[in-house]
Every structure is written in structure tokens, then in C-alpha cells.
């Protein structure tokens, strides 16, 4: 029997949503200050409006609080799913008022793509967008990548935080408490922010000849989009704009860092560093990056797209790292990417579909699930080949020694199959609109795995239904389904429950 939610349930959900909205309202103060300093008064007004909406909703939500707001599992999942729907709607207000979008839905699409760290964009003329709006787009990726919920957890310790943490597709408790874990994740991000912006800024200043202000601006934007595996760029030609191998190399370091689980960051920071290379996820992702890199380079070499070793290495490696980490930066135009047929296309599509590590900012199936699936298959084969009474080992390393249990395998298989279904859903609808199979599949995988590489399907003239489907894919893919299904179940119980 389904139990209909009561007023108390809505008040608890409203209370936690309210707290999160207040955190986002505070974050909105950063682009507001930026707009003020840059004398961009039109965006300044639109940021004020956005902050006002967040602050009003947040205050109302917090005032709704029941005497003892206890967050259970279903409440937490509903809060997470609603956060990731409502924040982009309100966060799209400054983008909508900028006049850079053909229709209101496109502004929402961009905010949604930013928050989910996808990077697909429907923005027209990004090269002439106000700097404060560009900052807000990139900050949305930082908020989404690090986790809005995580920000709220860092500030507001309290009961039920663990359900919010897991709801945001994170499954590692690095430190004993969720609050400490959330704060450590922010410490890792701040360290990367410092090293990343300094490194990119120096390259921009010393190698590219930018003035200091421009070098820091570009360094900051590329850091936000790179470390959070988002893929937005302040220029329409993405990282190709910089025409610099060293800039691409530093960007690649940030992309790799963004796709690593925060548990591994902890091991790299505090040791034991050997644990990083014993980890099943590390071994899996190194194998799959090597495989997809080989496939892509072979395809590009066979079709003579690049004829020099350096050209093939630079373009092939950057695109594969961008695809596998789920970032979506590119150094080749969409039209050229669309012409990478055969093996190169396969290598890129597989890289995007597999994605980064669990508990990172990357999307896709995730290397832990791939590693566990391979291990389960090997164990199954060994079980068949060995004598009946032989015991097959099930241990694996991932933040310590763990065991592969039937329940774990079941969970891994279900989520992996759901990803495959999500990839096929967008591809099928793209096909129905007459988009060629290769392009429809590439764009669908890119949206679902929160990558952002495009072969040109994502365009302001694209069908509205396809735009909505891509948004659904970004949402479900980012939250790894559970929170989305919980919201659907909650709404169904509200209508049909007793």
C-alpha cells in the first residue's frame, strides 16, 4: 500500500530546500559583486532579481520548519531531485534577461547544462557575453560539480545529511562524518583552484601574451569548467581558442583531477599514495583511457585526418581525455568532430559513455561499475572452469579491501543498464527527428554522461522535444537515477496513496 505524504513531509522538504536556496542566494552574491566591479549594470539588476527570488523562497522554506525537522531517506532524495530542477530555473533568470537566447527554454537549458556539469550550450554569441554572466555560467558548473548539497552540508551540520549526500550520487565517506567529508572535498577544490588558476594564468600571461586581468579571467573560467568537468568556455571555439599545447596540457591536468574520486584525492594528499594505484577504479580507468585512446588514434590515423605524429597526438589525446573525464572541452570544431567516422567515433563515444570515477564531478557509467562488472564476469568464468568445491576470491581494492557481493553486483548492473537505456532513449528520439544515427547517438551519450561534446545537433533550432529529452538525460545522468525515481515515486504516492 502506498502511503500518501502528509503536511509534515512537505514542511521537512521545504525546510531543507529553503536552506539550500539560501546557500545559492549567497553564491549569487559573487557574480553580483563582479557585475558591480565591471560596471555591467544590466546583469547587475538581473542578479539582484535572481538573489531576491532565491532568498525569498529560502526564507519561506526555512520558516516552514516543523519543530523537529527529521530528514528520512525519501525526503532526502526528493530534496536532491527538486534542488537540481529548481535551482537552474531560477539560476537561468540572468541568462534569460541577457538577450543571448532565442527562447526562454534555451536559457533554462544552459543553466541546467551548467549545473549538471554537462557543457552543451544554446547560447548565441558567447564571445560578446558580459563577463559577469560568463562568470555565473562557470560558477554554476562549480556549484554543480562540487555539489550544492555539499555546500549546504558544509555549512549546516544536522540530522539526515547522509541521505542528501548519497542522493547527489556520492557514495564515499572519506572521513568519519559527512560534514567533515564535505569540507575536505571543498579543501581539495580550493587547492586545485589555487594551483590551477595560477598555472593557467601564468601560461596566459607569459606564453599567450594576455594582460594580467585577461589571463586571470580565462584561467578562472577554464578552471571552473575543467576541474568540475563541465566544459563551458568563455569563447565559442572552446580551448581551441588558445592555440597552445601547454595551455591544453594544464587544462588536461584539471580534467583528470576532476574525474578522480575524492577518496583518491585524499590518498594523494595525505597518503598512503600507493593505495591510489592498487585501487580498482584507478586500474580500470587507466585501462579504458588507454583502450579508447588507442581506438581513436587508430581511427584518425586510418582516415588520415591528421598526418603528423604531433598533430595526431595533441588532438587525439586532448579530445579523448575531455570525453572520458566527461568535461566536453574541444580543440576541434563540431563540424570536424562530426567527420571523425568509424573507429575514432567509436573510441570517443565509448570514452564518453564510460565516464570518470565514482564520487567525482564526472558523469557516465563510472569506472568503478565497469571494474566491478569485469571482475564479476571473470569470477563467473573462473567458477565454471574450477572444480565445484573451489572458492573464488571476491576481494577488490577501493578505499580499502572490500568484497564483491551479489547485492553489489545487482546494484552495479541495474545502474549500468539504466545508463544504456538512457543513451538509447535520446538516440531513438534523435533518429525520429531525422538525425543520422551516428550524430544522434553521440549527442545523446554526451548529454546523458554529462560530457558536452557536440557534433552540432545541440543548436537553438533543435526540436523542443529533443531539447527537453536532453535535459531529462542530463538530470537523470547526473543524479544516477535514484533521486529522480524517488521524486516520481513521491509524486505518485501523493496522487494515489492512502
Amino acid at each position, binding site marked *: 500500500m502506498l502511503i500518501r505524504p502528509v503536511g509534515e513531509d512537505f514542511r521537512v522538504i521545504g525546510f531543507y530546500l529553503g536552506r539550500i536556496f539560501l546557500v545559492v542566494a549567497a553564491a549569487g552574491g559573487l557574480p553580483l559583486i563582479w557585475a558591480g566591479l565591471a560596471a555591467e549594470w544590466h546583469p547587475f539588476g538581473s542578479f539582484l532579481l535572481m538573489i531576491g527570488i532565491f532568498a525569498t523562497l529560502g526564507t519561506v522554506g526555512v520558516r516552514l520548519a516543523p519543530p523537529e525537522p527529521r530528514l528520512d531517506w525519501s525526503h532526502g532524495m526528493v530534496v536532491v531531485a527538486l534542488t537540481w530542477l529548481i535551482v537552474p530555473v531560477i539560476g537561468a533568470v540572468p541568462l534569460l534577461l541577457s538577450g543571448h537566447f532565442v527562447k526562454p527554454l534555451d536559457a533554462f537549458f544552459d543553466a541546467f547544462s551548467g549545473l549538471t556539469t554537462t557543457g552543451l550550450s544554446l547560447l548565441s554569441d558567447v564571445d560578446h557575453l558580459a563577463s559577469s554572466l560568463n562568470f555565473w555560467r562557470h560558477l554554476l558548473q562549480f556549484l554543480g560539480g562540487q555539489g550544492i548539497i555539499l555546500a549546504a552540508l*558544509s*555549512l*549546516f*551540520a544536522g540530522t539526515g545529511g547522509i541521505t542528501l549526500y548519497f542522493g547527489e550520487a556520492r557514495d564515499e565517506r572519506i*572521513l*568519519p*562524518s559527512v*560534514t*567533515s567529508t564535505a*569540507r*575536505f572535498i571543498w*579543501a*581539495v577544490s580550493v*587547492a*586545485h583552484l589555487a*594551483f*590551477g588558476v595560477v598555472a593557467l594564468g601564468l601560461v596566459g600571461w607569459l606564453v599567450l601574451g594576455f594582460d594580467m586581468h585577461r589571463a586571470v579571467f580565462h584561467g578562472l573560467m577554464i578552471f571552473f569548467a575543467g576541474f568540475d568537468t563541465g566544459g563551458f568556455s568563455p569563447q565559442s571555439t572552446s580551448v581551441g581558442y588558445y592555440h597552445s599545447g601547454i595551455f591544453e*596540457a594544464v587544462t*588536461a*591536468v584539471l580534467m*583528470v*583531477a576532476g574525474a*578522480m574520486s575524492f577518496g583518491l*584525492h585524499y590518498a*594523494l*594528499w*595525505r*597518503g598512503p*599514495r600507493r593505495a*591510489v594505484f592498487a585501487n580498482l577504479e584507478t586500474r580500470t580507468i587507466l585501462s579504458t*583511457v*588507454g583502450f579508447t*585512446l*588507442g581506438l581513436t*588514434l*587508430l581511427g584518425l*590515423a*586510418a582516415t588520415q585526418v591528421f*598526418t*603528423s*605524429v604531433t598533430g*595526431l*597526438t595533441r588532438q*587525439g*589525446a586532448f579530445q*579523448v*581525455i575531455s570525453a572520458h573525464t566527461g568535461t566536453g572541452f574541444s580543440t576541434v570544431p563540431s563540424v570536424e568532430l562530426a567527420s571523425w567516422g568509424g573507429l575514432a567515433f567509436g573510441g570517443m563515444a565509448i570514452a564518453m559513455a564510460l565516464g570518470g570515477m565514482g564520487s567525482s564531478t564526472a558523469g557516465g557509467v563510472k569506472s568503478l561499475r565497469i571494474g566491478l562488472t569485469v571482475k564479476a564476469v571473470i569470477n563467473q568464468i573462473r567458477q565454471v572452469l574450477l572444480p565445484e568445491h573451489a572458492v573464488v576470491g571476491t576481494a577488490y581494492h577501493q578505499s580499502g579491501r572490500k568484497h564483491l557481493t551479489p547485492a553489489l553486483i545487482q546494484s552495479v548492473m541495474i545502474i549500468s543498464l539504466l545508463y544504456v537505456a538512457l543513451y538509447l532513449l535520446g538516440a531513438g528520439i534523435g533518429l525520429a527527428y531525422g538525425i543520422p544515427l551516428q550524430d544522434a547517438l553521440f549527442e545523446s551519450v554526451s548529454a546523458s554522461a554529462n560530457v558536452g561534446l557536440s557534433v552540432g545537433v545541440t543548436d537553438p533550432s533543435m526540436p523542443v522535444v529533443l531539447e527537453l529529452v536532453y535535459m531529462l538525460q542530463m538530470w537523470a545522468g547526473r543524479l544516477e537515477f535514484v533521486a529522480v525515481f524517488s521524486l516520481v515515486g513521491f509524486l505518485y504516492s501523493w496522487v494515489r496513496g492512502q
Partner: protein
Amino acid sequence: MIWPRDKALPGIKSMFGGLAMFLIEALIVVALVTLALVLAGVFLAVL
């Protein structure tokens, strides 16, 4: 409620650990680019 002292957080002194983390990530990229260079050389020579 807001930001109490938490000894589990890395301090300023341990920023060297943070720098080591960044440098190891840079080494991973160097290894990937080296692999790509070898593969590109072999594929272009063979095909």
C-alpha cells in the same frame, strides 16, 4: 553551527600535500600523452 574547528580538515602546512597531489595528476597526464605519442607514431608508420 557554522564552520566549527575541525581537525580533520587540511591545514596550511599540509598544502605541500596538496601540491604533491597536483603534481602527481600532472604526471598522469604526461604518461597519457607519452602513450598517445607512441601509439600515434606506430599507427602512422604502419597505416
